[in-house]
């Protein structure tokens, strides 16, 4: 979990069986913003995808990797200013299908469907 406590910090978790919702603080001082982009911090889409995977790891208690990503849609531009706090809803079923969404009270930033191993 190389982004935990670096790119985001978990402030609340609500686990129910094979699904969970994690409330995260997006950390504005992460080094990723030095390059993405100078003077214009935008959360890299791939960091949001990795954040979803790390939430799935917290949910399952296992180290996971994406095997396939059937579809991941980036539906709004996320920045530490636009969304200092987000909610990640994630589920992993018995066939290792992962379904997830990142949103806040205003909008949805990412939806993802894939498989993990």
């Amino acid at each position: 979990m190389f982004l935990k406590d670096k790119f985001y910090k978990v402030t609340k978790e609500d686990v129910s069986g094979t699904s969970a919702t994690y409330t995260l603080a997006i950390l504005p001082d992460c080094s990723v913003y030095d390059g993405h982009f100078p003077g214009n911090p935008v959360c890299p889409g791939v960091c949001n995808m990795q954040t979803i995977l790390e939430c799935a790891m917290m949910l399952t208690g296992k180290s996971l990797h994406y095997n396939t990503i059937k579809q991941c849609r980036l539906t709004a531009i996320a920045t530490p200013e636009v969304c200092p706090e987000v909610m990640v809803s994630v589920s992993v079923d018995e066939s290792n299908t992962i379904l997830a969404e990142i949103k806040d009270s205003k909008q949805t930033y990412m939806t993802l469907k894939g498989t993990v191993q």
Partner: protein
Amino acid sequence: MMVDELLCVNGDEAQCRLAVREDNFFLEEDGLIAEVGIIEHIAQSASAFAGYRAVEEDGATEPPVGYIGEVKNFHLTERPAVGDVLITTITMGPTVDGVTIISGECKKESGEPVADTRMKIYVP
């Protein structure tokens, strides 16, 4: 940066190169690159290709900034390790309303497959 070099451009195809080094942002504790690091490498390869086209063919003064709009049908074969050299082939599809569909195939220099995906890149 997840691209070292744009190697060649041939019509709608281009190849980019990345050597995986120890200071890579996406390197995990097991010494291998995270899947999303490969996706970022493919996205930056497409961005390098688009930037080359904008500057060389359309006369832009600086390459445009692009965002990933969608990742579709990503398949991982093998995560690369420190010391591996990745060669990625980008095929650029049509652009509609600022959104370009690309496909990317990432292999090791030795020819072993790493991952492949399709992507929508959005240039505002």
